[in-house]
């Protein structure tokens, strides 16, 4: 009873949001920089721009997936190292917090210089994906129950068997959760990296449309990035549910 009510409220909220946006745009409350939703949709679905958008989505999606793989993968690996060697824990936690606190806009110019305009989006996406996956993976590796650990102890398990047969399988739902939490950040990181002048991508669309004062295109690109981030979140939510069904 409670969940459907909440879902209904959320759906109503979404509708209200769209209506409010349309009205604000129509009535020109904030002037021409705030176009109605229908105008933005018009741009988003106009046939002559489909190739532009699909190429941008492809580029941003690729950067985000690569960033998620690299940043998320490193996050999970370091969390595994933290799990294996107890003494490293305080230092690695501090290191991860430091990476998390790095302002993307502060590091992006340096990455452009260091890695070039093609690779900077991947690098920013990796940095963005690192901390959420590290934090969730740390929790995931502790997911095995005490009773299971006791069982492995009394059965005379070696450390390697404990890791492979208990800690890793028990961590699978949590690791999927790690990717779920890291995915939106990876998309937004890729967009920010592209904004500094990548050859393709949603971030480049945002940059060029804001420089060309093409406000509807700017809004359409921002919406595209937002939807892409939420799609990433949704995709890994489904994956995480499946993993939880199988492994818990």
């Amino acid at each position, binding site marked *: 009873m409670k969940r459907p009510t909440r879902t209904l409220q959320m759906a109503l909220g979404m509708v209200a949001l769209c209506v409010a946006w349309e009205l604000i745009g129509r009535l020109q409350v904030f002037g021409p920089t705030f176009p109605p939703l229908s105008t933005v949709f018009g741009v988003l679905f106009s046939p002559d721009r489909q190739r532009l958008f699909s190429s941008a989505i492809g580029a941003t999606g690729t950067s985000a997936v690569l960033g998620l793989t690299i940043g998320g993968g490193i996050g999970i690996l370091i969390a595994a190292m933290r799990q294996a060697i107890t003494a490293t824990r305080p230092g690695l936690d501090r290191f991860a917090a430091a990476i998390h606190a790095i302002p993307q806009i502060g590091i992006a110019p340096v990455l452009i210089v260091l890695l070039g305009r093609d690779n900077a989006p991947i690098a920013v996406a990796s940095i963005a994906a690192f901390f959420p996956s590290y934090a969730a993976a740390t929790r995931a590796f502790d997911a095995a129950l005490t009773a299971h650990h*006791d*069982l492995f*102890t*009394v*059965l*005379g398990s070696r450390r390697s068997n404990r890791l492979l047969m208990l800690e890793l*399988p028990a961590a699978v739902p949590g690791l999927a959760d790690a990717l779920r939490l890291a995915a939106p950040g990876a998309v937004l990181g890729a967009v920010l990296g592209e904004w500094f002048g990548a050859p393709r991508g949603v971030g480049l669309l945002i940059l060029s449309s804001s420089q060309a004062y093409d406000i509807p295109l700017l809004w359409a690109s921002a919406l595209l990035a937002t939807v892409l981030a939420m799609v990433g979140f949704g995709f890994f939510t489904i994956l995480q549910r499946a993993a939880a069904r199988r492994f*818990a």
Partner: protein
Amino acid sequence: MTNSHPIQVAATLDQPAISLANIGKEFNLGRRRVVTALTGVTATIERGEFVALLGPSGCGKSTLLRIISGLEKPTSGTALVEGSSPEQLISDHRLGFAFQEHALLPWATVSENIAIPFRLARRPIDRARVSELVALVGLAGFESARPKQLSGGMRQRVAIARSLALAPDLLLLDEPFGALDEITRRRLNFELARIWAETGVTTVMVTHSVDEALLLADRIIVMATNPGRIETEVMVDLPRPRTAETLGSARFGELATELIRLLDHSEPSDES
């Protein structure tokens, strides 16, 4: 995990399965607060015996079982299992253990769960033995089911089968039926009695149920709280096999009354 224990006696036939000498256990709660879980526990358990540790919660019976298993170390005193340290028994893969929480791996099937002791002992999985165990606990046909498809009672059957997989020298049961409903629990008591009769393995079981202890054990060690210690021992001279009729026998009633009296006595007057 090497043989660093100071006392290493070669196993002989006449030595007891378990000997506990003056065992004490304290838990450090931090801020200089220490709780004494066990004090002065001395006991001997013979080969092939089924002993129940019976007592109210907080009497340290589970802690004592964990010391025998090697999961905990005593603060003082020594525990010898088959003449050597509990750790030795673990590293030889000669220990079976069933927990109150079934502790089945949720991602593995019934057969895979029962076969885990083989894999952790790095031995080839004996398929015939696994199906024999599945049949022994009455789960034939459920080999490839996952734990969450099973009822609570069926999960505990799997846990019992797993604890017997390597034909252990010692079987430790920590309230294995504690989380089950009364009817299922009673049924599994009879089944465990039958399984134990077939294997004859030395068994120590923790329970707070008088009936369960009487249906299964040869001897009941009654424990008391504050601090956790052994109150007394009661020999269970009920004939085997014990069945539903045993429950109605006069001797069962006498023993139950006696045990309830002892437990009442062991409980401190104010429940704090």
